[in-house]
């Protein structure tokens, strides 16, 4: 697809929350006043320098920002050696180290912004959904810091496979509610959080973990995550004296990717790649690749690419990575795909686990299974690029939580 000639890719959404045909506010009437209240409160906060100043303070002193932009030297060398027939090639690979943030992932950037907004709005009770548990942990952490009660909805399947994060949330004083409706994963956790919100509208703030949901969430979460791309820009300038040539990030809902991508959307020289989870492979039907294997539909407050059957029923996603195991994608990603500005690729469970192992052993960095999907595609993307090509991959989280899942996966492969 050719990249359409817009003046800017960064002006969305429109006042009704649309990115092209995507986005919107598809929610029950009970929630509409809340959504409008949130939108007004966020717009006011954005315009208030004191809010930004306070956020910068917490991001620096509590989260530990800026996160390093790290040259992955051994991985770069390894790929140059193994790039068959391309001895002259092999991009220079940098990791944006979001795994080094407090709580171990990019999720905390967004949660810091939303919890400070909740405080401004006088909301006394925080709810969140979580898949891999990283957003739940970040929310539980900020709630502990600011003394707010926190309830995290988590699919029962995810509670099983991400036990370390369940224990962390509980230790931080949050209540984890396992969700046993539907497919017992992230989408059902989101349904349950929405049901909670419908029931407790007046005092509750719903802290959504990704660039999805009804307007203003996709834009608001993006804004909070843009710190990733903004820092990357400055850091690459400092390290190499110029912009990167390509960006690669994994995409479930897509908040880490949007945070990295958005500040670069209007730099046409920068190639941008999003990597979805292909699970057992796209042809198997058991995957979480909404762009590659889905089509536009309406769920969780927005129109976007979704996995569904011919009747419009949402189908269950599959990925070894709980954080990517969602049958949709943020609406702005859907639009960027259609516009041809972001190229969407995918990586299977097998490829992600191989990347997980290789990165651990070559760089001394155990990545989360989510960015391991991005790394898997970096392996072949980097090989096709010349040596002076600067490629940034978003190391969106650390992999401690995934050690059990990976060990089990490798064990099952032996049989």
């Amino acid at each position, binding site marked *: 697809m050719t990249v359409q000639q817009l003046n800017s890719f960064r002006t969305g959404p429109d006042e009704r929350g649309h990115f092209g045909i995507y986005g919107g506010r*598809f929610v029950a*009437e*009970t929630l509409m006043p809340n959504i409008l209240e949130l939108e007004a409160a966020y717009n006011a906060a954005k315009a208030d320098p004191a809010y930004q100043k306070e956020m910068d303070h917490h991001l620096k002193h509590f989260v530990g920002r800026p996160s390093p932009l790290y040259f992955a030297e051994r991985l770069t060398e390894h790929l140059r050696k193994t790039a068959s027939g391309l001895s002259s090639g092999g991009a220079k690979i940098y990791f944006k180290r979001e795994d080094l943030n407090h709580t171990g992932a990019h999720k905390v950037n967004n949660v810091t912004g939303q919890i400070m907004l909740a405080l401004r709005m006088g909301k006394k009770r925080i709810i969140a959904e979580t898949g891999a548990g990283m957003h739940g942990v970040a929310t539980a952490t900020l709630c502990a810091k600011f003394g707010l009660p926190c309830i995290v909805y988590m699919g029962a399947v995810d509670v099983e496979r991400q036990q370390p994060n369940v224990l962390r949330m509980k230790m931080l004083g949050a209540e984890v509610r396992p969700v046993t409706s539907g497919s017992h994963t992230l989408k059902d956790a989101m349904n349950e959080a929405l049901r909670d919100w*419908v029931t407790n*509208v007046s005092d509750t703030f719903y802290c959504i973990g990704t660039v999805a949901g009804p307007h203003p969430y996709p834009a608001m979460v993006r804004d909070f995550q843009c710190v990733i791309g903004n820092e990357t820009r400055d850091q690459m300038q400092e390290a190499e004296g110029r912009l990167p040539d390509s960006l690669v990030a994994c995409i479930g809902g897509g908040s880490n990717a949007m945070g990295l991508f958005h500040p670069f959307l209007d730099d046409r020289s920068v190639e941008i790649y999003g990597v979805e989870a292909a699970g057992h492979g796209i042809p198997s039907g058991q995957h979480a690749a909404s762009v590659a294997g889905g089509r536009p539909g309406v769920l969780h407050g927005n129109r976007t690419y979704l996995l569904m059957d011919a*009747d*419009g029923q*949402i189908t269950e996603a599959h990925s070894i990575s709980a954080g990517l195991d969602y049958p949709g994608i943020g609406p702005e990603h859907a639009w960027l795909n259609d516009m041809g500005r972001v190229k969407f690729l995918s990586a299977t469970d097998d490829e992600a686990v191989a990347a997980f192992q290789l990165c651990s052993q070559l760089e001394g960095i155990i990545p989360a299974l989510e960015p391991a999907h991005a790394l898997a595609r970096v392996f072949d993307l980097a090989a096709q690029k010349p040596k002076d090509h600067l490629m940034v991959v978003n190391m969106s989280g650390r992999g401690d939580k995934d050690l059990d899942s990976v060990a089990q996966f490798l064990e099952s492969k032996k049989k």
Partner: protein
Amino acid sequence: MTTRIERRFAALKAEGRAALVTFTMSGDPDYATSLELAKALPKAGADLIELGMPFTDPMADGVAIQAAGLRALKGGQTLIKTLAMVRDFRKDNNDTPIVLMGYYNPIYIYGVDKFLVDAKAAGVDGLIVVDLPPEEDVELCLPALKAGLNFIRLATPTTDDKRLPAVLNNTSGFVYYVSIAGITGAAAPDATKVGAAVARIKRHTQLPVAVGFGVRNAESARAIAAGADGVVVGSALIDVLRANLDADGKAGPNLVKAVTDLVSDIAQGVRSAAKVAAK
């Protein structure tokens, strides 16, 4: 041109009583049972029939209706079959209004224009689509009105006087007042508060106001009917239906009778209510 919904509410107003609106899920637990039940509802006292269009992710519904939708989907129900069910219903009932209720995605995937043509032809009178607030009226509401279908909107306790006109604008047939901020099947509302809320809505509209959420028996129906133009009962019927499924989830021999017995009972409650509102 009036719709069956408008004619029915006008007739009941002349009779001086509130309407009983029943909600059941189309295809729950299977097509044949669900159709048999729908056909039996008017005889048991239902004045309007809401048929659920099952959806995998019903974000405003409680456990009873969630499970009903999943049972229907497991039984092979689709939007195509729901429209077929309306056609089958219409073969021997041309008077009872039918409202389809559900979520937008299956309609969007069916194709809005095609859906409206097929729904009208099947004998559908109105639509309630939970996740389409006035902000998204161009999606389905405006085309539906143009196609001659009523588009029934939900008003809730969170819909304040400032927002109410936006919600009522483009609403037709009746207004569905959700009596509590919550999901379906939740606790019973306070009847006096409901009466006041209905009166508030009626200051903004001529449309009949039906009240739902939390109505479980004749007594609660009577209390609500006293202050409203209609009473909606759903989760309570579905709970009885579920209690009449066998271990494999198949319909038991008394299912239709058990559900319609409750409907008859609730209909008595509605009909015995002292009429105070809707004047």
